[in-house]
């Protein structure tokens, strides 16, 4: 059983469309991170959310942390082909900050 469940697993959309991907857990996290991974590269941090209910914006990307700090969402507005990649959420339980776990990821393809 994975600590973090991501959905959808795959998403293919046209340029200009909006999308939301989700990261859910039954556990509470002190913080959650979102990473993007491109082929042949390691994951790169996009954002960290810390406070329940927090919303962070990164250009066309909006990240939200659930009030109970058990889930998070990533919304992309007007997706572009450059947004294509594997989006991973990650978090560590409050009792062990070194035990960082990743979700299985959402593979996003944005077609021109």
């Amino acid at each position: 059983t994975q600590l973090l469940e991501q959905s959808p697993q795959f998403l293919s959309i046209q340029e200009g469309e909006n999308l939301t991907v989700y990261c859910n857990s039954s556990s509470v996290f002190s913080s959650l991170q979102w990473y993007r991974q491109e082929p042949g590269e390691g994951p790169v941090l996009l954002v960290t959310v810390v406070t329940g209910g927090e919303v962070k914006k990164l250009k066309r990307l909006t990240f939200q942390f659930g009030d109970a700090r058990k889930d998070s969402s990533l919304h992309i507005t007007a997706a572009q082909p450059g947004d294509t990649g594997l989006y991973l959420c990650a978090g560590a339980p409050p009792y062990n900050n070194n035990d960082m776990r990743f979700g299985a990821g959402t593979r996003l393809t944005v077609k021109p």
Partner: protein
Amino acid sequence: DTAVSQTPKYLVTQMGNDKSIKCEQNLGHDTMYWYKQDSKKFLKIMFSYNNKELIINETVPNRFSPKSPDKAHLNLHINSLELGDSAVYFCASSPQLGRVMNTEAFFGQGTRLTVV
């Protein structure tokens, strides 16, 4: 001035061989990790070290042995390689608990291991 660097980037070897992957970080972080990413892209934690001390050792075969000579290095040695070991192995580092609230990880570019 790469933050987390691992070598080699590609490694092709025969079953039964022993191989090592090296990792170095120049970020001054206290915690380092090894992750394995399988063909389905699932990143699974293998080991976590904090200040050269083993913190997390997941259910990884004991053919895998991490070694941390200092807090800037975490190498991974694999004995008697098997076909199922083929994957991309990522090294990562993060700041220590207590200095920052969250645990962002900085990843190397990965080592693609192919066992034939």
